[in-house]
C-alpha cells in the first residue's frame, strides 16, 4: 500500500523548512532508518530518516524547495512492485493532525478559579476552645513537642538533617528526639543539602512523611531544585498520581551579626511556587499547631522559623492534640485606623508599634498571616475595608516582596476603600552587613512601622 511521506517537524518550533537535498531517488529501495533527505529547519540542517520499508514511488517536492510547510506530502513510498497511485487517488496517510495545540479552543474562555466573594470576611473562629488551660513555652519547645507528638502517632514520620540527632540540633529544636525515637527515625546527615533534600523527597514519594531540617534556609538554596522541581511540581506533572508529603523546616532570615550569606528571608521566594505551602509562625502556639498541621499535610510544606524567636516564650494551649489550619490569619489586635499585616518576626515590630501608636491615640489592627501560601487574603481585605489604610511588614527584600503581592490584591479588590497609598516595609535593598550599626539599619524596625502608620494616617 502506498504511503505519503510528509514534511516532518524536526524541532519544537519548526513550522516550515527547506528540503535541501534528496539522498534517494525514485525507484530506490529504502528501509527503516535510511536517510531519505536533508532538511533545513529553523535551527540546523537535519537528516530525515525513513520510518517504513518500501520503494520510493514518487518525489513530490524537489530538492532546494524553500518554505515547505510541516505535514505537506513530500514523497510517496510504495511496496515492492506496486505502482504509484494516480493523481487524485489518495495514498494512505496518517490522518492530518487534527486539533493541534488546541487551536480550535483559542477563543474559549479559560477556566478560572472560583470568583472571589463580594464581601471578604475574616474567619474569626478561635484556634482552641475558650477556657483551655494554657502553659508558658518557648517557640523552641513548641516545635520539638509538635514533632515528637506527630512521631509518636505515626511511624512514617521521621526527621533528617545536619546535627539533628546526636548533637540534639544545631539550635536544639530536635532535643531529646533521638533518645525517644532512636537512630532509625532521627537521622544525622552529612553536610550535603542538595543530596539529603532529594533523598527526603524520594522517601516521601515512597510513602514516608519526612521532616527535613535545614540548619538554616540559607543552606537550602543548595537544595532548592528538589524543593521546587521535585517536591512541588510532581503532583501536577503526574496528573494527581504522586504526592509529596514532606516538611522542609529550619531557621530563616536574619539572626544576629551573621552577615550576608546567613541572613536572607526566603518567604517571598517560596511563596511564588504553586504546589508548595509556605508557613512562617510567630508565636509558640502557632509554631506548634502549624508544624503539626504541616506534618499531616499531604503536600510539600516550607516551614520558615526564626532563630531570634526560638527563645521567646508564649502561652500555649494544653491539649492532647491541636492544630492550626493553613490559610487562616490571626488578628492579634483589633483596631480602626490602620491595618498592619505581617508574619514571623515582623510581628514583633508590628505589635510593638501598635502599642506605641495606641498611646498617641492611633488604633492599629495587627494581622499575623501565619501562612504565606495559602494566604488569607479575605482577612486582609476585610480589615482594609474597615481601616482604609494598610502597612505591611516583613524582613525580606523589597523587590518582589510578600507585601508587594498583598498590595496588588488590595488594589484589585479594595481599591475604593483605600484612603492612602499602601506602604510595604521590608528589609533594606542591600546584602546584610556584619557591623552592628549597619545591620541595625538594614533590618526593618519598630520605629519604621510607627513612622509608616503616621504617614498613611496623615498624623
Amino acid at each position, binding site marked *: 500500500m502506498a504511503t505519503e511521506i510528509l514534511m516532518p517537524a524536526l524541532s519544537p518550533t519548526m513550522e516550515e523548512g527547506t528540503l535541501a537535498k534528496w539522498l534517494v531517488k525514485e525507484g530506490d529501495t529504502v528501509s527503516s532508518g535510511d536517510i531519505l533527505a536533508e532538511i533545513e529547519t529553523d535551527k540546523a540542517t537535519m537528516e530525515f530518516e525513513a520510518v517504513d520499508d518500501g520503494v520510493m514511488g514518487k518525489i513530490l517536492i524537489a530538492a532546494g524547495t524553500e518554505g515547505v510547510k510541516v505535514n505537506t506530502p513530500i514523497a510517496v513510498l510504495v511496496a515492492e512492485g506496486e505502482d504509484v497511485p494516480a493523481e487524485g487517488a489518495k495514498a494512505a496517510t496518517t490522518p492530518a493532525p487534527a486539533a493541534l495545540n488546541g487551536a480550535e479552543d483559542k477563543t474559549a474562555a479559560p477556566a478560572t478559579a472560583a470568583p472571589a466573594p463580594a464581601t471578604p470576611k475574616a474567619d474569626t473562629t478561635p484556634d482552641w476552645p475558650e477556657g483551655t488551660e494554657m502553659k508558658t513555652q518557648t517557640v523552641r519547645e513548641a516545635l520539638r513537642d509538635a514533632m515528637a507528638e506527630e512521631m509518636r502517632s505515626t511511624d512514617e514520620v521521621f526527621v533528617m538533617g545536619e546535627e539533628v540527632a546526636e548533637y540534639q540540633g544545631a539550635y536544639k529544636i530536635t532535643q531529646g528526639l533521638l533518645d525517644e525515637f532512636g537512630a532509625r527515625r532521627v537521622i544525622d546527615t552529612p553536610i550535603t543539602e542538595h543530596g539529603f533534600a532529594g533523598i527526603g523527597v524520594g522517601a516521601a514519594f515512597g510513602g514516608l512523611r519526612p521532616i527535613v531540617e535545614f540548619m538554616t534556609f540559607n543552606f537550602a538554596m543548595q537544595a532548592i531544585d528538589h524543593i521546587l522541581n521535585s517536591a512541588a511540581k510532581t503532583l501536577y*506533572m503526574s496528573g494527581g498520581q504522586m504526592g509529596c508529603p514532606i516538611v522542609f523546616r529550619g531557621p530563616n532570615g536574619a539572626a544576629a551579626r551573621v552577615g550576608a550569606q546567613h541572613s536572607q528571608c526566603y518567604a517571598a521566594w517560596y511563596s511564588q511556587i504553586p504546589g508548595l505551602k509556605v508557613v512562617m509562625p510567630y508565636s509558640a502556639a502557632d509554631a506548634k499547631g502549624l508544624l503539626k498541621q504541616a506534618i499531616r499535610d499531604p503536600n510539600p510544606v516550607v516551614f520558615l522559623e526564626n532563630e531570634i524567636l526560638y527563645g521567646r516564650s508564649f502561652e500555649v494551649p494544653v491539649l492532647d492534640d491541636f492544630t492550626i489550619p493553613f490559610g487562616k490569619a490571626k488578628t492579634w489586635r483589633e483596631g480602626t485606623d490602620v491595618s498592619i499585616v505581617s508574619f514571623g518576626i515582623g510581628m514583633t515590630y508590628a505589635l510593638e508599634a501598635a502599642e506605641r501608636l495606641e498611646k498617641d491615640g492611633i488604633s492599629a489592627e495587627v494581622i499575623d498571616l501565619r501562612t504565606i501560601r495559602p494566604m488569607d487574603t479575605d482577612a486582609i481585605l476585610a480589615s482594609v475595608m474597615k481601616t482604609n489604610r494598610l502597612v505591611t511588614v516583613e524582613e525580606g527584600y523589597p523587590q518582589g516582596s510578600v507585601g508587594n503581592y498583598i498590595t496588588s490584591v488590595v488594589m484589585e479588590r479594595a481599591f475604593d476603600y483605600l484612603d492612602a497609598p499602601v506602604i510595604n516595609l521590608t528589609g533594606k535593598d542591600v546584602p546584610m552587613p556584619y557591623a552592628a550599626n549597619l545591620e541595625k539599619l538594614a533590618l526593618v524596625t519598630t520605629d519604621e512601622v510607627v513612622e509608616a502608620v503616621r504617614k498613611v494616617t496623615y498624623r
Partner: protein
Amino acid sequence: MATRKSTAKSNVSAEELQSYYRDMLLIRRFEEKAGQLYGMGLIGGFCHLYIGQEAVVVGLEAAAKEGDKRITSYRDHGHMLACGMDPKGVMAELTGREGGYSRGKGGSMHMFSKEKHFYGGHGIVGAQVPLGAGLAFSDKYKGNDNVTFTYFGDGAANQGQVYETYNMAMLWDLPVIFVIENNKYAMGTSVQRATKSPSLWERGAAYGIAGEEVDGMDVLAVKAAGEKAVAHCRAGKGPYILEVMTYRYRGHSMSDPAKYRTRDEVQKMRSERDAIEHVRELLLQGKHATEDDLKAIDKEIKAVVNEAAEFSKESPEPALEELWTDIYA
C-alpha cells in the same frame, strides 16, 4: 552481520528469550512511531528517543520482582514500556491528551505510574539520583526487601548530587542500584570531552560502592549483571553500580542535527552491535523460534504500536478545568 555470542551464561528459557525480543521490539517500534508523530506535529516540545538502548531496561526488568521501584531521567519511554505500563497511556501523554498517564499535564519527560512502581520521568539532569536513593530509603525504613533501580546517563554522572547520594546510600546501606546508561554522549558532548575518568562506575569506589561495567547491547549480560546487583542489595549490603555501555541511534532529542559523531559510527553500531538483532540471532540459531514465529511477533508489536498511536490521536485534549487541578493533594 557477524555472529555474536552472548557474554553471559545463557540460563534463560526459549520463552524468556522470546519475551525479551518482544519487549525490546515494542520499545523500538514505539519510539519509531513517536518520532513519526513528532514529525507530524502531534507530539511537541522535547522528545528523547530510546532507540538503541532497549537491552538495558529489558535486561534489568528481567532481574526485578514485584515491588521493586524504578526512576529515571527524561529519556524514559523505554523504561515505562519495559515495566509494563500501557503503550496507549504513554503515547497519549506524548501527544498531550486526556488518556495519557499524567492526563496530558506531564508530557514526554514527566510520567509516573504508582501501580507499576515507576517514579518518573524527571527533567532535571541528575535529580532522579537522590530521589531514587530516597525511594530505597523508604523501603529499608519499612523493612521490606525491595530494591530501586535508579537510572541516569553518562552526562548526569558529572552532577554533584550523584556523589552526595553515593555517599549517603553507602553510609546507610540503601538498597539502590545505580544504573549508569553510558550511551557515550551527553547531548553533543562525548564522555571523553566531559571527564578524564577512565570509567564512571569506578568512581563509586571512593565511597566503597561495588559495581561493574556491563555490555548494554547484550540483554543477557544486562540481566545477569542485574541479578547480581539485585542479590547484593536484597542481602542488605547497600548500593551497587552498573555502568551499562550502550548507544543511542537517534539524536539527543528530536531537534539534534547530530554533528558530533559520524554517520559511520552510528551505522557500525547498528549493523554490528544491535541488541534486537542479537536476540533474533540467538532465537533462530538456537532453534528457539522460527522466522515465522518472529514475523508473528513483529506483526503483533506493530498492531500494539498502531493501536497506541490511534489512541493517542483520538483521546481528547484535557478539559480546560484541568489547568487548575492536581496542584494540591
